[in-house]
């Protein structure tokens, strides 16, 4: 038994060492990146897998990408078998041949050898500045098929036994926009895998393969036991939920639904997405890797966060994800998938939150505000270069949880707070746009005993040339995330383009031509609420009124709290009357 042969100190050292290697990898990638998605928006995943593709350490990363990283590793093991050598680095972005989320997420995979034996794989996956295809920015609706969305790269050797595969690299960089920029980010990702290799080889040299292997088996076993124990505390039953998006970007104004039936039975959990809508013409189709990753990550939110950094294959063993092909949650080739990590990724995560919150009301978690980004590309008259702009600034914040209001500022549940918003001062230097407004919007949180975080009122002016805006994977202008345990839904998102004195509504999943001087205005809803708003502490409502987050009227009508219009003191008697309670 490994537990008898491994001393607790070695076990703890090996376990924590692997976590810190992963954090170091992420650090190197973010510090050297030139793409905002990597440097600030945390669109990265890293980790360590064993020679069979079992997950060993994944303490940090973007939920859509990393818990399913094992599928890519397993695919490479199957495809290459005895053609995997020290110094090889594989590149893969093809969701259908090698697993992935969508084409801009490129993964570099390095096998790690010790004394001639394949011991581990490491992977660095990150969203690239460009991946070819019809338009820059990779969130464009209405592509004919996945070939039109960009380069489709099945696992190939980017480095072959330490040597650059120059022909391949030339081919790739000849087919992306800003090839030098993409290369910068790729160098950082490959450097991260090199560092992981060095560290793991150091660990293996120190303890030997057998000891490290013994630690791993013990780690997997302990984690699995813990997660089973946690699941067994959830009441058995079948819990169902559904979440929709506004449309698929090709067939407009027709919502698309993700449906979940979650079965809790003893110490196992089954997440069944079979009733989700059939795969779509538009780009909201998702892939098994993304859906698996996001569904499992959402379950982890409900577990004791003390083991947050320790998740591995053992944590995933008690959780089964049923996800048949041909659904919007697991489309067949050559369906388009551009929006998938966020739309329908958000819906996958929301459905798990809603189902789990039914099962576990005292740990209810409400959906966060839906992502409300756009992509703008055009010429920058200051430099003569082309630019592409992408960011999370217009997004509203987190949903409430049982016991606390939503975390302000945290953007998109699909990131779980791993992204950073850009500074206004940084954006104005990087792109030819002038920021007019970026602050909380009034009455924007979903109400509740605990309210969601605020939405954002955001506006900017085009100081550059003619440009194109893709409203990409933004969502929730019509179909909004639902509140839980009696809390209110996220208010809808809204966007306008102002040209001179004309103001027109802009909708999600579309393209708009922009002229110099155009102003884009966005107003996002905040996170959804938890619990009945009329149960909210009147003092908390008053605080929000003082801070102009909730209006006087909303305090009275939604929260049933009466405030003196002059002093803004709580009128206790009137409040009790509004709330229908006797003193």
């Amino acid at each position, binding site marked *: 038994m490994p537990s008898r042969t491994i001393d607790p100190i070695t076990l703890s050292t090996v376990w924590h060492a692997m976590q810190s290697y992963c954090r170091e990898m992420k650090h190197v990638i973010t510090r*050297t990146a030139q793409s905002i998605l990597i440097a600030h928006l945390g669109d990265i995943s890293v980790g360590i897998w064993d020679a069979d593709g079992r997950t060993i350490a994944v303490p940090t990363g973007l939920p859509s990408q990393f818990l399913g990283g094992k599928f890519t590793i397993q695919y490479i093991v199957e495809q290459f078998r005895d053609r995997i050598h020290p110094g090889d680095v594989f590149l893969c972005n093809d969701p259908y041949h090698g697993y992935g989320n969508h084409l801009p997420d490129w993964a570099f995979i390095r096998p790690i050898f010790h004394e001639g034996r394949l011991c581990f794989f490491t992977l660095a996956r990150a969203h690239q500045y460009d991946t070819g295809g019809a338009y820059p920015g990779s969130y464009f609706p209405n592509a004919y098929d996945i070939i039109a969305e960009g380069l489709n790269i099945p696992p190939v050797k980017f480095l072959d036994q330490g040597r650059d595969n120059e022909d391949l690299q030339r081919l790739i960089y000849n087919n992306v926009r800003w090839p030098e920029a993409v290369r*910068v980010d790729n160098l950082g990702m490959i*450097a991260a895998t090199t560092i992981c290799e060095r560290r793991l080889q150091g660990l293996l040299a120190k303890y030997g393969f057998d000891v490290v292997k013994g630690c791993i088996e013990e780690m997997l076993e302990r984690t699995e036991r813990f997660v089973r124990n946690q699941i067994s505390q959830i009441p058995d039953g079948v819990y169902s939920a559904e979440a929709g998006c506004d449309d698929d970007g090709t067939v407009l104004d027709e919502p698309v639904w993700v449906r979940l039936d979650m079965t809790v039975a003893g110490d196992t959990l089954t997440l069944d997405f079979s009733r989700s809508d059939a795969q779509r013409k538009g780009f909201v189709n998702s892939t098994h890797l993304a859906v698996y990753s996001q569904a499992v990550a959402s379950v982890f939110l409900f577990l004791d966060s003390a083991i*947050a950094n320790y998740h591995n294959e053992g944590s995933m063993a008690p959780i089964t994800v049923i996800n048949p092909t041909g659904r919007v949650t697991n489309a067949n080739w050559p369906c388009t998938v551009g929006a998938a990590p966020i739309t329908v990724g958000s819906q996958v995560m929301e459905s798990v939150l809603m189902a789990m919150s039914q099962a576990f009301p005292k740990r209810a978690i409400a959906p966060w505000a839906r992502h409300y980004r756009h992509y703008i590309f055009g010429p920058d008259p200051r430099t003569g270069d082309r630019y592409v702009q992408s960011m999370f600034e217009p997004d509203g914040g987190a949903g409430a949880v049982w016991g*606390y209001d939503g975390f302000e500022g945290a953007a998109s549940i699909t990131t779980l707070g791993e992204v950073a918003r850009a500074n206004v001062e940084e954006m104005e230097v990087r792109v030819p746009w002038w920021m007019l407004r970026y602050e909380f919007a009034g009455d924007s949180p979903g109400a509740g005993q605990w309210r969601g975080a605020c939405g954002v009122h955001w506006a900017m002016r085009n100081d550059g040339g003619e440009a194109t805006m893709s409203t990409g994977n933004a969502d929730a202008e019509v179909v909004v995330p639902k509140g839980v345990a009696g809390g209110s839904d996220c208010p809808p998102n809204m966007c306008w383009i102002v040209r001179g004195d004309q103001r027109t509504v802009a909708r999600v999943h579309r393209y708009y031509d922009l002229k110099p001087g155009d102003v884009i205005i966005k107003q996002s809803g905040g996170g959804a609420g938890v619990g009945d708003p009329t149960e909210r502490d009147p003092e908390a409502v008053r605080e929000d009124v003082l*801070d102009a987050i909730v209006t006087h009227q909303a305090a009275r009508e939604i929260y049933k709290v009466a405030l003196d219009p002059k002093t803004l003191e709580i009128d206790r008697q009137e409040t009790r009357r509004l709330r229908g309670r006797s003193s």
Partner: protein
Amino acid sequence: MIVSIDVGGTFTDCLVLDGDGAVRAFKAPTTPRSPAEGVMQVLQKAARTQGQSLDEFIGGIELLIHGTTLATNALVERRGATVGMLTTKGFRDILALRRGFKNVGGRSMYDVFLPPYRPLVPRRHRMPVTERMTSQGQVAVPLDEGEVRQAAETLRAEGATSVAVCFLHSYANGSDETRAAEILREAFPQAYVVTSHEILPVWGEFERFSTTVASAFVGPLVSTYLDDLRSRLDARGLKGRLLLVQADGHVQSVGEVARKAVYLVGSGPAAAPTAGTFIGDLGGHRDLISIDMGGTSFDVCLARNGQVETTTEMWVGEERLAIKMRDIHTVGAGGGSIAWVDSLGLLRVGPQSAGAEPGPACYGRGGEHPTVTDAALVLGYIPADYFLGGEITLDIGLAREALGRLGSRLGMDAAAAAQAVFQAVNGFMASQITEISTRRGYDVRDFALVAGGGAGPVHAGFLAELLGIRTVIVPETAALYSALGMLLMDIGRDYARTLISPAAALDIGKVNGVCEAMEGEALAAFRAVGIPTADVRLVRSADMRYAKQFHEIEVELPPRPLEAADIPTVLEEFHRQHEARYTFAMKFRAVDFITFRLHASASRRAELRLGARPNAPGRRETVVEKRRRRAFFGGGMQDVSVYDGPALPQGHPLKGPAIIEEETTTVIVPPGFAVEVDDAHNYILAFGG
């Protein structure tokens, strides 16, 4: 006579350095309600030892250097001023959005049951004002002075006592902030007013605003305290200078610090690495790791070539501070850290600490949890009868009981549990040292370890063994490590100005203009404390990055006005540093300059006589054993020699295993190491010696 005073959470430490180079240590309890009171008490204690009255003693002080955790604690515990904020209209919530950072302070993405972040300034006190600058410093929308007056009225009515003026792009042109501050001071003269371009004139509004608001938050408290301290000292006839320890590892005049109070955050611990570099230098060690292990925390800091590393990326509690601070990595591991078994059945130590009350189980004050100190006691490393010079008698039975309870959960007895706890905390600390050395591309074996704090010298030898470090240095006043550093710090400050430009298009004249402005500001500050320009050392540097990257690397510039011919050399150095840190450089890529920095300091080495001091009273001629004790070395309990530290002769190496008892600490010398007292009264542990 030079005096240093370190006001910590529990104790106020004081060191007195005499003309002959002797250092004497004093401790008094900290008086949180009025910290100046505790300062006077410790000075009283020191005076008494000298046989002087307080007035005589204070009158004889040439220089008083002072560090305090006042600002740090106020920030972390959120006990500061009611702050109002004036900010550019349309951008009211930069502080609250916090750039979306949720997972700070070691939190995981899976942590969602969290109270949401509440900024130091509530929204109702964040007053939008019409004005707007461009990134090039041109006025796009003029300041509405009427709105500033209106905001001043509102904030006054709301009971604000401090105001932070934070406008967009003020790093490029601070005139709107300056004008708004003028109006505020006029309309609301009682308020403490700061502007973001004065506190930190660098690019990136969230970081600048957050730092400025933190300064406004602690400012009134800091000023009140400094006024109080100043007047008490003046009343006792202080003629010497009073200097304060700043986060960047320099000391600065009271006036400068009162205006930029945020620089006092981290004040105490920032001093410790200076003791490390000074003492290391005496023995020719320029690459050092300084550790400071006290009751609750373990501070570790790296110095290369005698220079302590700094960072601009610190979070203090929930607040982001972007001033340059010493890069001190702090984790919850100290003598009082509690050992526990986590939900995965792993032994963990800290970050929870038993603190001073109830303290470790062996204190006998009701502490039931086993701590690192309990383990050290059971393993025979620390004396039961001479802890803090005998001030506290430790109860080994209680320590064994607590460790026995822990051990029963791990299937081991109390002795084995003590070993496991001791090893676990050492393993954890060693990994923290690796975190700041190996992970930055340095080979930890090339460094010497300087150990301070009461618990540091107990563990340092074992840490060195784990990491392959060959030299450990323990100062005789190890337990007052920060106060020792304070005695030795240089006077100075870091300055910064953002000027964003591609290297290929750098306006050299403009750069030199910016650098000269910073130098002018620095030299004026030095003159104000009586330091002539000739004594000031100026180091220019630039934060640089590859075009479109988001993070910079600081590269040193020539110590004179820049010339076009310097650029290739500077670029070469940037490529080299990028490669050293991240394993690759990208010479094909254009490079941008972002922020220019100036580091101004005046060395105090000349006035310090701390160093060789061969004829110390109390030291014997030969090594005499104090007693023997059973302690855990080389896999088992064995009988080892215990020595009385202050009586050991200089220059007589002793072989480990050995234990040396000082009044406030114990130096453990593992097998394989030899120890000797050098002529500056430090313990030097050498591997294989």
